[in-house]
């Protein structure tokens, strides 16, 4: 399925979610994907509802020591990482 011009970008839009209970507040994700993840009160949170920064958010989700981050493709619901 092609994202074409329907989505907000070439990946058709991704969502990033953080399980704030699991999050250990390492900040590694914010370093990998500064436009999409930031720490507040010692826990990470997504900065925007949708993103196209595929490489960055996948990297963040794969490096997270607690596997607290999930990246999904909006169009299909497919989990891309971790």
């Amino acid at each position: 399925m092609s994202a074409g011009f329907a989505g907000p970008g070439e990946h058709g839009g991704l969502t990033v979610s953080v399980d704030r209970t699991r999050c250990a507040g390492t900040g590694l994700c914010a370093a990998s994907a500064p436009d999409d993840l930031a720490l507040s009160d010692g826990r990470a949170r997504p900065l925007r509802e949708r993103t196209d920064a595929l490489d960055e958010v996948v990297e963040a989700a794969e490096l997270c020591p607690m596997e607290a981050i999930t990246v999904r493709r909006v169009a299909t619901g497919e989990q891309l990482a971790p």
Partner: protein
Amino acid sequence: MSLDPSDAAPTEALIPLHCRQAARPGPPELTTLLTGTPVYLVRRHADVRQVLTDPRLGRAPLYAADAPPLTPYPNLLDDPDGLLNLDGQEHQRLRRTVQRAFTPRAIARWRPWVASVVEDLVSRLSDAARPADLITAFARPLPVAVISRLMGLDTLDLKRLAYWSDHALSTSAHTPEQVREAIVDFLAFGTALVAKRRAEPGDDLVSSLVLAADEDGEVTEQQIVRLVIGLVVAGHETTMTSLGNALVYLLTDGRDAWERLAGSEEEAAAAAEQLLRSVPLGENEVLPGLLRRAKEDVEIGGVLVPAGSVVAADHFAANHDPEVYPADWQGGLFDPVGTPHLTFGAGPHHCLGAWLARMELELALHRLARRLPGLRLTVPVAEIEWRRGLLTRSPQTLPATW
């Protein structure tokens, strides 16, 4: 062999660590380290978590030129180039070069191998003459065998490793000269190892570290070397300590759980997590908690901590905070922990080896209980000999039969 008999406290003073009562958490309190340095002692779960995650507090300022003395003895852990003592971007850079090898998924791939190491040790133990020492035969060799394998150190002399480890984390057991000598020797080993893997890379952890660091280009040689030897110590000391102390509990007051531990790996994993939360690694005599230093004024738990202050996060007290956890951990040994405990810390320095340590502990307890259902100690608790390190205390020997 880390305890010098001349300054040994009488053994009757040493209760098993699972019997230690955590201080009741309250607001941060001003007290002093053994060196006389003032320290804010923080004990509530939320406060400890704040201290460990708040960027206004750091590790690097503990070793700045104006920093007050922290421990009366030199040790490897005071090295300002160590991963634990870097902050901010420099820390992130070094941490990222190793993090990939330590995510839950990466660790899960090693499970069959860790299980086979555990099974070999249990087999050898069950063939041994009884009584046998569970520390020499099991708790001590396990973490060493695992980390050696990951790092491709198949030829490492285990006596040499024990010597470094003992000295690196020692308290009063060794003279400062002895400690320095051991550290110099340890660093030489690390330097040679890094050089060798750079020349002939393999698929081990050291090779991938060197590769990742060289790719990054800004990680210094010294940092790689310290990281490598830090990992050697890490695979040795803390895991051995938590396994040894878990066994003391499970073969005495907690003996009723033994059969259930044998039942499934999932049950053993649940118990391992509760034991990690509940049984402290040591005494907090030298250091009352995980240390940080305030870079600016910061409010913690309603108390204003001025810039430059040393703060100790007592994660043992936090792990028993009645606001967060039930009072009776022994009755809930197989229950999920709920709110994540702080035994592995939190924030940027959250333990790199946490998932490896968990796996080792859970497999060790499960396989031992399964193969030796009748395992029992042959000495009374009061006669257990203890080994005391900088931050840890664990049984020196644990004679048992089955």
